[in-house]
């Protein structure tokens, strides 16, 4: 039984939904970052799979740039997270409602 494009799509859907669950359920910001990583990875898989089954390199190109962005995002995110932690001594999402209207 041949592995077709649908298998990869199903896989990336599952990963995406796990990532989404993580994002929504987590209160701890760090854990939330992990979940966003999962989201990005699941998208990468589908890019790679589509580029493979479609014989087109664009998918992989896009995956590269996704990885680049993810890296920079994590860098900046963690910096901010540390600052927040220094000020409030916890990185709980609920405490971050000072910007409330």
């Amino acid at each position, binding site marked *: 039984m041949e592995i077709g494009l649908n298998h990869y799509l199903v896989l990336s859907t599952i990963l995406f939904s796990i990532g*989404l669950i993580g*994002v*929504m359920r987590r209160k701890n910001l760090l854990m939330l970052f992990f979940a966003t990583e999962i989201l990005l990875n699941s998208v990468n898989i589908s890019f790679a799979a589509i580029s493979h089954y479609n014989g087109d390199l664009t998918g992989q190109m896009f995956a590269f740039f996704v990885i680049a962005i993810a890296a920079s995002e994590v860098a900046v995110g963690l910096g901010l997270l540390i600052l927040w932690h220094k000020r409030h001594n916890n990185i709980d999402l*609920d405490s971050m409602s000072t*910007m409330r209207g």
Partner: protein
Amino acid sequence: MEMFLYIALFAPLVGSMFAALFSAKPKTLIAGIIPSALLFVSFIASSILLVYVLQTGSSIHVEMMTWMATGELYIPFGFVVDQVSVTMMMVVTLVSTVVHVYAIGYMSHDKSFNRFFAWLSAFVFSMMILVMSDNFAGLFIGWEGVGLCSWGLIGFWYHKESATWAANEAFIMNRIADLGMLIGIFLIYWNTGTLQYDEAFAAMPALETDVLTWMGIFLFIGAMGKSAQFPLHTWLADAMEGPTPVSALIHAATMVTAGVYLIVRASPLYDLIPNVGLFIASLGAFVALFAASMALVNRDMKRIIAYSTLSQLGYMFAAAGLGAYWVALFHLMAHAFFKALLFLGAGNVMHAMKDELDPFKMGGLKKVMKGTFIMMTVASVALAGIFPLAGFFSKDLILEVAFIDNHYIIYSVLLFTAALTAFYSFRLVALIFHGEERYKLFGIDPHEAYKFMLVAMSPLLLLAVIAGVFKMTYFEMVTQVLPATEYHIDSPIVYWIITIGTQLLVGAAIFYAYKKYTSRDIKVPDGTSAMEKSFGYKLLSNQYYIPYIYEEFVAKPYGKISAFFWSEIDQKIIDASVDGIAKAFYNTGENTREMHSGNLSTMLKWMVAGTVGMLSLAVVFGLAARHSDGVASILSAIGVK
């Protein structure tokens, strides 16, 4: 002549106004005398009018002022004095003068003496309007005015719960009939374009019969309520709560006869629709029998007389139904005299027995109350229809009418009722005046009423005896307006058999009642005797359970339904739904407040929910656009290619 018409009409009103001025003050005699005097003046004016109408044979028609005038409708305050209304005026003014004078004595120890005369004269005024008006709307004014005054007078002793309840019941039951009357008036207006008697009756033959039948039926419904015919009769018995002069005037002579007057006045209409007449006659016969049966067993003196009035009304409707209008009017006149006399006599007895009404608790009063005894016996004899007295001429005439038009069922019912009438009226007289003085057991010492009250009653006594004499003169006068059909049986033998037969039957009934109720061993029945337990007795004494049925299946459910309407429908459904809308707005505001409450995770959730919503819409429209071009056109209109 117009001057006399206005005097006859407005004298009672002036009397009533005068008495009303003193209504709050304690008893002042002039508040009683002035209205009676004014009523006497009105009686004189009516008799002058009678003489005028008799001689010239023409009617007086006068229009005082316009009442309602919009569009095609034009109703004036017009009054007509023709043969029919003059007879009624005579009856009304005579009986009310007698009752007014009698009431001065009867109500002498009552603290709201003045108010009584205000109401009584107001009643006579509205009765005069009813009788003298020349159009249906004026008739309706009198109709409702009479209902209002009977409400005031029945509920006169308003501290008594039963009196006020009876007053309300009478008023509401009359209103039910008045609705029928109102619809009849509308029918007449929209079909004949006017409400004046002469114009309306002139335009009626042109209409087709079923419209006329409906008119006849609706007007008869109005008459039925006012004259307490079958379905709407329970209020008459309860109306005995009022003072006796009220019962004498209103529930014997004037108000209850208003229904008969309406049928007589609308004779041109009822001539066009004989089958409605037949229905009226048969209903009248039924009511005669029905009321007489109830009177047989009743143990309340005034209710017995009330039922006898009801049964005599049945007679009048039977005569009017068969087309013999002048006979009905004649019986109405005669009946008014001797029934008022009977009631006033009963009033004297009630006063003497300290308001005790049960005839079984009296007995042998003839020794003490000589005058009242004579008057009540003569009245009962007249009621029974023994030869020389008024009853014979009027009631037996009705029997003849029924016999000639060969309505044998009606004839036999009326004949049997005549016997019953004789029986219960003499049961009453025997129980009260003859036999052993049972009142001694209760320690009451009766005394005769005031002299002037007996004198006041004497004109009625006189008329009860000699009313028969006027029959011929009355006949020529009235038949100028009403259809003049002579009623006498062609073969003399049959005629004699009939008259002698009825006399004998009535005599036998009287003798039997006399023998049964003057024997020594009459005791106050305490519900133990076999007769009282019998089903028939129970049925009759509870008036065929009709008041119970009305109470159970009309009054109570009405109360329950209205309570249900209020608490359920008004509060819970309509009001709640209005408040519900308001709450809905409030709650949506409340719930969506959390959306921007600053908590990042909830906001995240709402964001994801939003994207999901948008995406699903995109998918749905995407698919829809492919299948139906309509949707595609909409999308393209919005700018989504």
